């Protein structure tokens, strides 16, 4: 039997020790009426050779198209060492480090991760990861309600330039606790939230303001003005940031005169493969004064009984296994293995590597946009600076164009029609350091053909 080492002799000896006649006897406490006789809907077993064949065929079906998709998940180079080490059994098959003395590897890695993420975001303290960027954003909103004691409204302002899926996750995960998410409009010329649009909230109790930088369109928000506006009126600021971009862009800890209060984001760009959407990891950081309001595991450095340094889970009284119904969150399992990969990735990239990666991604996306807008019927949607993705406006529906491109082995970006119908035919495109000049040229040439094919259709 797969992965069960017992011989018939073992079973006989074990049953004899127990004093049972058969394995069936061991289930005697379960009412017979509840017992299931077969699992006809589960196929017969495959051996490893057969599953290998099946999975290889399935993978081949999906192919490896040339992708210009971004929208919250980004293709970056991943050093071979990252996953060679991450999948070592000692990391891969370990449990949550509750037995600290037998888990110093995981604990120290987490401490190093917390340090790197705090430095990257310019914040004081980071936790050991959340599920993904979207759920971290939802948890940040819940945390802001706990942290902002002066505010009683549980109102959270959400720019519509925040990733549409993040907005939906925030509503799904936080509205049961009475949080109200109110959407802020964006400027259709510049593709950013206008501080002037906040005027209508003058004098009102607002718990927190979410700001995504770069925003969903790739555009850069005026984070200083938005942050100062919020702080002047007792509203907390939740930053949602792309970690790669932080090598170039002002970190949330430096926004405005006081810095953001909570910063979260999707960690996937840091050494985690795209993998159809997960497993990724969310990161979460804050000021030390709010650390007890932060959900999720946190590792601290301490001493052992002989005075040697060591690492342990700390501030556990915030968590569900101790605080139960009054915990900061129900989160237990996090994304530890992905956090491990990110820690190795950041160690290999270092300040220079991450900065070069961000710069190269930015350069390639600018070159991509410059090439694509040469195509008749294609223009840039918004004026002003972007980071590594941008919105293009087409003179015809986007879906048929993307379909024609896909038939040529190119994933040309994300059709924004379902999310921002007011923009008309709009396409979000992304290029990172993984794209070559030849890749960009292939997209440009194919787009011309696809536009013509779409018009003909």
């Amino acid at each position, binding site marked *: *039997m*797969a*992965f*069960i*080492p017992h011989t018939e002799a073992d079973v006989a000896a074990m*049953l004899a020790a*127990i004093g049972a006649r058969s394995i069936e006897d061991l*289930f005697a406490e*379960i009412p017979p009426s*509840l017992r299931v006789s077969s699992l006809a*809907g589960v196929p017969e*077993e495959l051996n*490893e050779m057969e*599953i290998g064949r099946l999975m290889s065929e399935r993978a081949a079906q999906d192919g490896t*198209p040339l992708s210009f*998709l971004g929208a919250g*998940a980004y*293709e970056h180079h991943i*050093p071979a060492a990252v996953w060679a*080490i991450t999948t070592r059994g*000692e990391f891969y098959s370990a*449990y*949550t480090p509750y037995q600290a*003395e*037998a888990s110093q590897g995981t604990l*120290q*890695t987490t*401490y190093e991760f*917390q340090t790197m993420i705090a430095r990257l975001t310019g914040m004081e303290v980071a936790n050991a990861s959340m*599920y*993904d960027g*979207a759920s971290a954003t939802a948890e940040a909103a819940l945390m802001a309600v706990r942290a902002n004691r002066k505010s009683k409204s549980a109102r959270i302002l959400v720019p519509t330039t925040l990733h549409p899926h993040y907005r*939906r996750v925030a509503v799904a995960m936080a509205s*049961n*606790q009475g949080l109200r998410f109110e959407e802020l409009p964006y400027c259709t010329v510049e593709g950013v939230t206008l501080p002037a649009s906040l005027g209508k909230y003058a004098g009102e109790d607002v718990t927190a303001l979410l700001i995504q930088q770069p925003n969903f369109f790739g555009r850069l928000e005026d*984070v200083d003005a938005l942050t100062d506006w919020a702080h002047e009126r007792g509203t907390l600021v939740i930053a949602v940031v792309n970690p790669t971009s*932080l090598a170039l862009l*002002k*970190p949330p800890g430096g926004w405005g005169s006081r810095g953001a209060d909570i910063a979260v984001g999707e960690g996937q760009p840091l050494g985690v*493969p795209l993998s*159809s959407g*997960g*497993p*990724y990891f969310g990161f979460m950081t804050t000021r030390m004064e709010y*650390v007890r309001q932060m959900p999720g595991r946190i590792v601290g*450095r301490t001493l052992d009984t002989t005075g040697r340094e060591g690492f*342990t889970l700390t*501030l556990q009284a915030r968590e569900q*296994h101790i*605080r*139960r119904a009054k915990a900061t969150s*129900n989160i237990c399992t996090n994304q530890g293995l*992905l956090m491990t990969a990110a820690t190795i990735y950041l160690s290999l990239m270092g*300040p220079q590597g991450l900065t*070069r*990666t961000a710069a*190269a991604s*930015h350069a390639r996306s600018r070159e991509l946009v410059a090439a694509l807008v040469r195509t008749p019927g294609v223009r840039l949607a918004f004026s002003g600076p972007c980071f590594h993705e941008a919105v293009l406006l087409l003179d015809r529906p986007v879906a048929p164009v993307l*379909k024609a491109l896909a038939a040529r082995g190119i994933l040309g970006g994300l059709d924004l029609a379902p999310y921002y119908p007011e923009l008309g035919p709009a396409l979000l495109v992304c290029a990172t*350091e993984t794209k070559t000049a030849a890749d960009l040229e292939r997209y440009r040439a194919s787009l011309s053909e696809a536009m013509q094919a779409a018009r003909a259709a």
Partner: protein
Amino acid sequence: MPTREKVIFEYSQPGRGASDQWPHYVGVAPLADLPAKLRRSAAPELPEVGELEAVRHFTRLSQLNFSIDTHFYPLGSCTMKYNPRACNQYAMLPQFLARHPLAPESHGQGFLACMYELQEMLKEVTGMQGVALSPMAGAHGEFAGVAMIRAYHRARGDLKRNEIIVPEAAHGTNPATATMCGCVVREIPVNAAGDVDLAALKAAVGPNTAGIMLTNPSTLGVFERGIEEVARVVHDAGGLLYYDGANLNAILGKVRPGDMGFDCLHMNLHKTFSTPHGGGGPGAGAVGVAARLAPFLPLPVVDREGERYRWLTESEMPQSIGRLSAFMGNAGVLLRAYIYMRLLGRDGMRAVGEYATLNANYLLKRLRDAGFEAAYPERRAGHEFIVTLRRQAREFNVTAMDFAKRLLDLGFHAPTTYFPLIVPECLLIEPTETESREMLDAFVAAMSQILEEARQEPERVRSAPHTMPVRRLDDVRAARHLDLTWTPTTQH
């Protein structure tokens, strides 16, 4: 085991780096368009180390861990069984890794076929009518489940049902989840035999009852024998039953939650379906529902039309509780669970429940013979059981925590300690089906050795561990003097 490894920042040297990993091309004046006021003023202070230094550092760190691949890990409620390497290798085929979550269905038929078949297999093993895969951990699945229960009552105009009943021995995630869903928690006791106190349950249910959350076998390691009556009481009161799938491994292929009367459940794919725990995650907490809750399932859900697989759209599921992840949840974990289920097949599934139960009952019997006290001596173990060390604590002044730490010295990961809270000085022990009889016997020998040490030289047990990279750590100091990020000036 090796001893201390420096913090990576202590290896850092200005100007050093794994430059082979960095892009050569960074464009021509690439940053000219980024306004200075939006720019970072100095590069982030990340470590500057060579590739070999980084590889050695993290390899050494890994060697400071216990793991399933290196040690027996009988952690109750956590199902630490072998994570087959094939599951990792074939989930990490290059096309799967490279696939963007927003790639069109035309470039995802292979992946979607796996997801669809996984949904179908999970329905079959749980007796449920609908499955959604996106919750990213057990607690996330619990959230989805209770949120669906609330949405169900609301959709019927039954607005006052906001109470969730949980047994006092429940996992902490159960009450925490109820709170996250805006519900009020009502705890009920279990009786001396480990079953739910039916009189207390009957007194607790009423017009405000949204539902009950149960684990079965329970966190006490025993099968809830009154489950049919529990279901009747809760359903008659208008509530729904939520199954916490943490202990599904015990009954896989033998009993199905749907047949017990549960309306909704989550499965910890990182337990029952053997995806790795990764030092704390990722997990995957797929949810299953009876027909009446199917309209409320979280998105995305995979459907099949003829030979084509596709996502159900939001307009097709207007009552969905919504999205719980930016994309598809922990897709790569789901692929690993799919591969594991295909490797086991229907007979293998049944064998999981059978051999997990055999191992647990054998280990329980051997430990009792060795002088340890079972918390529920009259009961069969499910796939795990509780030993209470209250007598040893009294006679030798040696606690469950001391036993746990001494086990580390002897090469065994400790069982779960001090959970559930209602049993004093407890060890919750779950051997899983993938361990051999010899390994179980070796564990009994280690426990017997510690018991003897507790009699003869208790200080040796109390001061354990002696052979690990660190001795017992000062948790109080860690919480009073928070040191959560490394700085060059950190002093102790």
